[in-house]
């Protein structure tokens, strides 16, 4: 990792009619960095990436990728980037090798260089022996690694991954991230969008994005620390709704929200919530089960920063 910015985004705006999908977004990504855009569906992550790839023209603001302006030099930009989206957009009616040859050809990789890169991509995606299978017959994880292979045949300096792991099993996701880290070590700048919390943790830096605005930016650890200003407690109680209403009235409680079947409650530091809260809730006819201090997750940070109903990561699919 060095300090030369590979991607510079400055007050980027994209409007669709009256709707502002991306609102004054600015960030810089260093070469070799893995940078994540984290946010719910429709928050503007994909729109941002699509502008950086030259698939959409910005309404205002500017962005450069490897020093090239994405609006004015879109064609040069494309020579230096790889792009992979959630749909693994390969041709299902071509074989793995035909897909690689096709995309290699479009990127102008030819001759021995193409053969070498294809051999590399086949090995990387674990497709050795299955090169002649139709892509449509491959399983999700294979398809995804093949799509990655197609996207980086031309050794791009920047790789955009737009929800690239959506719908893939956890093991394949892990393998996929190992490949991403390897590329990052080789100096490839990687911009990912995701709504998976575990994936967000893999990133060097994150930008939390909500309704087109960046609400917080930093390393995953720093975001969690700064977002939660107090102690975080997990409270299991019944009834859940009554418990939420009651706990918000309790002394020292800064915020509370429902997480799955329990409540996450932020209490200002220096209090004794483990004893105070059960007593307070009992007085309000709420039966408390388990109550314990937990360390905040990125989702807690996101809820705390936006006040919105989380990313709902696990409810997708």
């Amino acid at each position, binding site marked *: 990792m060095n300090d030369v910015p590979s991607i510079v985004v400055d007050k980027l705006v994209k409007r669709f009619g009256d709707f502002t999908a991306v609102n004054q977004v600015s960030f810089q990504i260093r070469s070799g960095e893995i940078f994540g855009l984290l946010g719910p569906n429709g928050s503007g992550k994909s729109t941002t990436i699509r502008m950086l790839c030259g698939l959409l*023209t910005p309404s205002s603001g500017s962005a450069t990728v490897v020093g090239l302006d994405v609006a004015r030099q879109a064609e040069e930009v*494309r020579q230096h980037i790889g792009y992979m*989206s959630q*749909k693994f*957009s390969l041709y299902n009616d*071509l074989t793995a090798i035909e897909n690689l040859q096709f*995309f290699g050809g479009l990127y*102008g990789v030819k001759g021995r260089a193409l053969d070498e890169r294809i051999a590399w991509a086949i090995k990387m995606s674990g497709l050795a022996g299955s090169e002649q299978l139709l892509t449509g017959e491959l399983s999700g994880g294979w398809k995804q690694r093949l799509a990655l292979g197609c996207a980086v045949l031309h050794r791009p300096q920047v790789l955009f991954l737009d929800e690239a792991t959506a719908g893939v099993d956890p093991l394949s996701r892990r393998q996929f991230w190992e490949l991403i880290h390897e590329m990052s070590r080789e100096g490839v700048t990687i911009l990912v969008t995701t709504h998976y919390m575990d994936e967000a943790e893999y990133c060097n830096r994150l930008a939390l994005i909500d309704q087109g605005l960046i609400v917080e930016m930093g390393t995953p650890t720093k975001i969690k620390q700064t977002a939660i200003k107090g102690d975080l407690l997990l409270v299991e109680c019944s009834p859940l709704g009554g418990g939420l209403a009651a706990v918000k009235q309790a002394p020292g409680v800064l915020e509370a929200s429902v997480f799955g079947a329990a409540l996450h409650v932020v209490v200002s530091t220096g209090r004794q919530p483990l004893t105070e809260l059960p007593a307070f809730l009992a007085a309000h006819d709420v039966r408390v089960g388990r109550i314990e201090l937990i360390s905040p997750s990125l989702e807690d940070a996101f809820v705390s920063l936006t006040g919105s109903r989380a990313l709902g990561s696990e409810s997708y699919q």
Partner: protein
Amino acid sequence: MFDRIWCMIVKEFLQLRRDKYARFRLLVPPIIQMLVYGYAATFDVNRVPIAVMDFDHSQESRDLLSRFTFTGRFEVAKILSNEQELKSLIGRSDIPMALKIEPGFAELLRKGQTAHLQVIVDGTNSNTALIAVGYVNQIAGQFSQDYARDRLNQMTPALAAVVPQISLEQRPWYNPDLNSQWFFVPGVIGSITLMMVVTLTAFAIVREREIGTLEQVMVTPIRPFEFILGKTIPFFVVGLADVILVAVVGTLWFQVPFRGNVLVLLLGVVLFLLSTLNVGLLISTLSSTQQQAFVLGFFFLNPAFTLSGFAFPITSMPKAMQMITYVDPLRYFLVILRGTFLKGVGLDILWPQMLALALLTSVLMLISVARFHKSID
């Protein structure tokens, strides 16, 4: 640039090779359509079943009625004794026409007065009715002429010898037997090609948009016009093969003569293919799903077919409709097809049609490339 276009072409053919349904669609329906149209699309009125009501029962009335079956145009299917039966026959569309001769028919003729032959026609199919009535007129006219001459001959043979007569001699150029297959088969070549090429191209780009590969391709250094060329050249080749197939099957099977220059026809085919490819492209850029493309394609094809002069003469259309026909590529191609097949005319006659197709192609191409740029956004 050529590398990338070549890459697209190879890919398209690979996909086509794998697509069993597309191969079927390119081969079987065009030939079936050719045969169906060739046999069914006809304006000829032959062996029309008719009902007759002869209330005169004279030699004259029998003579007149027998002339109808004699030509082969009509067949007496029913002999009726009252008009009630006729109503139900025509109502059920069993019979499109009936002839009625009132009592006293022969008597009037013999007195040298005007006698009536009543024709009752099912006018719902106005075209067939018109043609059938035309034949009736001819037959009745001939009968009356012959009858008059016979009587004159009997009464004053000397006078009969000097009565002048005009005889009609028909000389239909290019199609002496007025065989309507000769008219339709070249037209069918045009309409099948139009349908084939427009639907193929309209779906081609929309499908890529739908499955997301368009986006994946557009983030590579390929330029939009390279993509469009790579996408359309294969369809051009396929379309060309299809035209040749349909044309060969049509001409051999239906024995339609080809009197012109093959190269002139080929030039017309190329220009027509280019214009229809661009119509398909335009539809592609206007739709975001295959379903929309289907609806738009249908919306284009139906009027394009009706206004082309395939079946309905353009000169008989209202002026405003005639204006619309000028943007219909099939209109020009049909003139080229019929000109080369039947009339054997060359570029000296057909250049305006060629020019029109070339212009249409250029305008359509400009619009669809501009639309394609926008549609990626």
